[in-house]
């Protein structure tokens, strides 16, 4: 039970950094019934947050908020989005613990990491 609430806290922290408006209280309440979700925003040629730590089973959604298309591609071939134009999204559910580095295959200087615990 303790480890679950820690994980939820971590997700809430990640969302806070990403600047999501969702209240942490609401999130905690719904997280116990529904699968976990988290978000990464693409702004100014960078992934925010750059490193996101989530519990196993979390679905992460990336949203491109730049005027330029980007992709979300796992460095180790685990996941690969199609090209995301402005405001388009990509989601992936992480069912195994581990560290998942990823990058934008169009602008490879853009890198990020998902840590699944």
């Amino acid at each position: 039970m303790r480890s679950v609430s820690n994980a939820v806290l971590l997700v809430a922290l990640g969302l806070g950094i990403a600047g999501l408006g969702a209240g942490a209280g609401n999130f905690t309440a719904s997280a116990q019934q529904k699968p976990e979700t988290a978000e990464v925003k693409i702004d100014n040629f960078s992934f925010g947050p750059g490193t996101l730590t989530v519990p196993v089973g979390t679905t992460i959604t990336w949203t491109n908020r730049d005027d330029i298309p980007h992709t979300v591609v796992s460095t180790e071939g685990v996941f690969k989005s199609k090209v995301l134009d402005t405001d388009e999204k990509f989601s992936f559910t992480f069912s195994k613990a581990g560290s998942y580095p990823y990058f934008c295959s169009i602008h490879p200087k853009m890198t990020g990491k998902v840590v699944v615990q």
Partner: protein
Amino acid sequence: MSEKIKDELLIDHNHDGIDRRGFLKCMAWAGTGALCVMQGGVLKSYSLSRMSELGPKAEGELSFVQISDSHMGFNKAANPDVVGTLKAAIDKINGLAMPPEFILHTGDISHLSKPEEFDTVDQILKSASAKDVFFVPGEHDVLGDDGQQYLERYGKNAKGAGWYSFDKKGVHFIGLVNVLNLKAGGLGTLGHEQLEWMENDVKHLKHSTPIVVFAHIPLWTVYPEWGWGTEDSAQALAYLKRFGSVTVLNGHIHQTMQKVEGNVTFHTAASTAFPQPAPGKADSPGPMKVPAEQLKSVLGVTDVSYVRGQHALAVVDSSLA
């Protein structure tokens, strides 16, 4: 008279490159519509208002035009009319005093690799007086399919992922692809297979053959923090060391920049679609919004001419304004 002196720079770079102060001044002008002419190892830089004085000096045996980054399909605030600005670029080319023999397009033809985006560019290019257009892909032209569509459209006679070479009036042109198989955290990449091809391609050429290399991402490290460089370009340039005149033409960074290193003149062309910020001058290299009335002054075409016996090719940028 004093005005004239202020407007003109003469920099001798017989040794190891360009005078830094002069280079920076040239770069500063580039953003507001300058032209830089490289002849006989001497850089001459003029403000665009005095372009007419240059006319005859830029003539030679071979003249061609470089356009770049037309980003057909882009419709955001930085330029809601990329069709109009590409047409303006073609009008500019058609109005040149010395008609170019052909056009080089250094990539990002399309914005999202959509068939209709390529179709639109092809249609607009038909109105150019120069009928031959040579392409290399930008990263926006190979989205989703690792460049298959690009190859089918533009690379029928090319090798590998779309690289090729050809000769025009004694000048050897090499089109390279450095936008595929990009690695996380890295820059543009040519790759082993292409480098090997290039080494063989230039092996039998005489030292005196002028070489023009064109590729999308700069083959010199402009600003690695924004990915403006090519990982293995040093190897490609090593194959060209023995040649007396090498001109490298790139796009990608949506602004004109020039550098001379030994026998090599590096040049990037402006975009016909939208400008990008100078290296490190913004949070990201994303499209830069300028007031609508200034847009055409930061877009442009590059006119290149070869004069036999000259050390380097003359490279002249002009804005669409």
